[in-house]
């Protein structure tokens, strides 16, 4: 700008266009430098992302697999009758299992001593499970059957290398000889790892059973909360923004509202949690740990995000469109709903989904209203119970697992993070698809 006001120095006439003069060279160098900074910034960002993704995957993938002992054998009618005829029926079944296992191991040319006690240490109460199976399915007697039995968490950690031979103190939980058995079973292909469906579909367990813990119940909790957030914050947020942007008079009062909405967006989420505790639970006496209350708190948190993004996308619609509609005699409301809102839709949807994604990952306010991980013990059986019965949500569940002392829960926490990220990614993809669908480039 300033160059224009001072008289420019006389330009040398007749200079070749083929050679850059000093000024041009300087400008080009500045541009190159700026581009380099940009590329460096992107690379730094990407490397953080890669680091994050690999560490999450490396730590979290084991949560999805489970170490199992896989054996196939046939229980004959005589063996069944014999076992049922004894006094200690389950231990008779254990003995049958031990003999079948030994048979299969020695068939592979390996030689280890397996006994009933060792099997119980490695696999838990196998005999009971077997008996239950054959009592319930008597037709399976005499048929070859596949058994997949979950190994104890210590076996899993031994195989992962987290538990070494020196750490095994004989007589407690595992004995050194058990590890020989494990090695032999691995060689025989009897111990393998399988996908752990229980992690996806299960509920939280007590602190003493990390192997059985699953994230399923808290996924459902998160789902019900998101339902509440979506059905409250989208209509309220969009209606408020349309009124503020299109209808409200521009005066001090609406300015004040505008400033306060922006401020709300910056309020730390834990404040909303305290508010929810005080208002919804202590004052309104809604049940503790209920996804309904969680959803209400997160609605408060999501509203400003939705209002701000909706207003921004309404503002971005050119005023000439409104003039055009009013000019042909449309009412204010017709002009907004027929012309402005459809154009603002992609922005509104994106804002809403970003708000929902934020809410999905929010932990602190949920802990305050009691939606901690260990309440996620059972699945709800319907809409009302889904909204009102105590449940947790994915991030709170992850937090609870990470805070437990047993290291095996740590792995569950990482696995939970993968599940949470998958949900967030799905939401973002939905946002992109909706955006594409609604966006009109004309």
């Amino acid at each position: 700008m300033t160059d224009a006001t001072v008289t420019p120095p006389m330009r040398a006439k007749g200079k070749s266009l083929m050679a850059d003069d000093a000024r041009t060279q300087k400008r080009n160098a500045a541009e190159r430098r700026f581009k380099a900074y940009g590329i460096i910034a992107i690379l730094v960002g990407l490397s953080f992302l890669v680091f994050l993704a690999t560490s999450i995957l490396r730590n979290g993938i084991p949560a999805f697999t489970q170490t199992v002992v896989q054996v196939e054998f046939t229980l004959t009618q005589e063996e069944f009758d014999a076992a049922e005829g004894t006094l200690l029926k389950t231990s008779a079944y254990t003995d049958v299992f031990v003999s079948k296992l030994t048979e299969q191991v020695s068939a592979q040319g390996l030689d280890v001593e397996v006994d009933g006690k060792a099997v119980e240490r490695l696999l838990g109460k196998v005999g009971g499970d077997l008996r239950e199976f054959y009592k319930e399915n008597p037709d399976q007697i005499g048929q070859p059957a596949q058994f997949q039995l979950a190994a104890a968490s210590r076996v899993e950690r031994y195989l992962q290398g987290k538990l070494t031979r020196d750490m095994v103190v004989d007589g407690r939980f595992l004995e050194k000889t058990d590890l020989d058995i494990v090695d032999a079973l691995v060689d025989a292909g009897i111990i393998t790892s399988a996908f752990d469906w229980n992690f996806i579909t299960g509920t939280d367990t007590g602190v003493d059973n990390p192997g059985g813990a699953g994230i399923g119940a808290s996924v459902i909790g998160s789902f019900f909360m998101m339902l509440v957030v979506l059905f409250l914050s989208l209509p309220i947020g969009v209606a408020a923004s349309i009124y503020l942007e299109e209808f409200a008079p521009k005066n001090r009062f609406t300015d004040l509202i505008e400033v306060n909405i922006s401020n709300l967006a910056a309020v730390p989420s834990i404040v909303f949690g305290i508010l929810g505790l005080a208002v919804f639970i202590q004052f309104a006496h809604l049940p503790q740990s209920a996804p309904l209350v969680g959803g209400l708190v997160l609605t408060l948190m999501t509203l400003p995000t939705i209002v701000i993004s909706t207003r921004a996308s309404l503002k971005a619609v050119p005023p000439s469109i409104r003039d055009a509609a009013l000019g042909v005699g449309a009412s204010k409301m017709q002009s907004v709903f027929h012309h402005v809102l459809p154009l603002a839709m992609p922005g509104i949807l994106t804002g809403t989904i970003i708000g929902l994604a934020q809410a999905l990952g929010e932990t602190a306010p949920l802990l305050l209203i009691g939606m901690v991980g260990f309440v996620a013990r059972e699945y709800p059986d319907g809409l009302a119970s889904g909204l009102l019965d105590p449940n947790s949500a994915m991030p709170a569940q992850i937090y609870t697992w990470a805070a437990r002392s047993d290291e095996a829960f740590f792995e569950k926490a990482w696995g939970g993070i993968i599940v949470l990220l998958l949900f967030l990614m799905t939401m973002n993809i939905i946002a992109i698809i909706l955006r594409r669908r609604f966006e009109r480039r004309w």
Partner: protein
Amino acid sequence: MDDYYTTDRKMSTMQDTKIAASGVQVYYADNHAIKDVNVDIGDKTVTAFIGPSGCGKSTFLRCLNRMNDTIDICRVEGDIKIDGEDIYDKKVDPVQLRAKVGMVFQKPNPFPKSIYDNVAYGPKIHGLASSKADLDNIVEKALRRGAIWDEVKDRLHAPGTGLSGGQQQRLCIARAVATEPEVLLMDEPCSALDPIATAQVEELIDELRQNYAVVIVTHSMQQAARVSQKTAFFHLGNLVEYDDTDTIFTNPKDPRTESYISGRIG
């Protein structure tokens, strides 16, 4: 000045007054944009507003269908009557007024919808069509009057914003006439048009004059001379001179008018 004089133009027998404005003042916050304008606009007449850029032609035009209501800082004082009714009366719904007083804006502003929907929108919301075939007829008629039918008849469902600037402006004219207004306000409708389209639009304006009052803002003095029967010259927010078009162009009373039309101020 003789070249402005067109003898073949049908002289208007001065019709009844359609719009009567008296003592109109418009303020944009502290900016006094229209200063005490009195003007009577006749029915079945084309009235041209001319004047240098920024003198308030668009502002005054927008007063006539209360489009200025949408500008928060804009304040209109004075008295504007259409068919003897004060349009700024509390009882008047501006939405109803705008159905009666159509407008073509300075910048083409088609809806980001199909060409068909652009034109059909007004008739639809005012319930002018009883059936789909009826609506198709209205759309075709409007597009023909907008002098754009031949260019778009094969792509009625293509986006209106995909047309060229001049085509968009004619689409906007078609959109405005589709609702059958009684008064048509046109803010520089031909500024983006080539001479052929301009001639078509001028023909349209002349045809509209049979039934409507047309007010047109233009920077082209030739155009004002060709299409209008009455001309108003604005300067710095004042209505300097308002008279028969012939009188303005051949025998202006005010020296400012004379220097403007002869190209000395602008």
